[in-house]
């Protein structure tokens, strides 16, 4: 069961309090009534389903109720970062580790041995 850092509650909470909301950073066109069929298809239907890092929306539905965004690795289920709705897509290479990230323990393990 995942632990997800809610950027509004500033705390990690159990997955049970959250609901996934699909891909993030897909803005509804402000002139939606005028867009072409192809543009509508891209907006509403087409998604990448990547193996690796995905930017996705989550809602802390049984917590603060807010939608927020997360970068998650779909292979390891590790959350690279979470950030508030409306904030720009983070540059993951530049991003400092957040407390949402699981550290591996390899370095420490050497010391233990």
């Amino acid at each position, binding site marked *: *069961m995942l632990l997800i850092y809610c950027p*509004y*509650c*500033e*705390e990690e*909470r*159990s997955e*049970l*309090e959250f609901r996934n909301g699909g891909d993030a950073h897909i803005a509804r066109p402000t002139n939606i009534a005028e867009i072409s069929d192809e543009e509508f298809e891209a907006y509403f239907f087409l998604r990448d389903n990547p193996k690796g890092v995905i930017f996705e929306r989550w809602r802390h539905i*049984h*917590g*603060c*109720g*807010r939608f927020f965004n997360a970068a998650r690795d779909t292979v390891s289920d590790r959350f690279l970062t979470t950030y508030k709705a409306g904030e720009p897509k983070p540059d993951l290479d530049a991003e400092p580790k957040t407390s949402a990230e699981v550290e591996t323990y390899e370095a420490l393990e050497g010391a233990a041995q």
Partner: protein
Amino acid sequence: MADQAIRKAPLAGLRGGSHAAILTPAAPASRISLRAGKDAVPALSAALGVTLPLRPKTSASSGKRHALWLGPDEWLVIDEDDADLMAAAGSSGALHSAVDVSHRNTAIIVSGPGAEVAINSGCPQDLSLGLFPVGACSRTIFGKAEIVLLRTAEDTFRLECWRSFAPFVFGLLSEGAEDAAH
């Protein structure tokens, strides 16, 4: 002129729990779901007589009136004396939304040394005093029901849920309280 309608609370008359965690339905209270931006907080706090908290998982109390932070623009305000909170919020003059939810919610008081264990039978949050001190509050999940938790003392929680979920919540709490006694 008809007779005055009599009020009937969803868990009226129920008692339960164990020696480790006693379950008591709370008395009726007035409640509002209060929504507002940060700039409206001082005026609303003044009007309500309780300082709306701005930090996550915190609450503020003034007498029998409590303001619980539920989200960045959302508070649950509870008045155990059944005062008119809608009117109080309305008098603030600040932009906000107040909605009466006095009858939507009902509350169960869970108290005793096993209160944490009883609630943790269905709630995944860490309720240890370090992380969930007296005054801490949170909307969260309890089994298949959504609840709002407020820690009112080291061994006492006020657990709010929607009225139709109350029998379920009370039932699951009873099992948790029973287990907490062992």
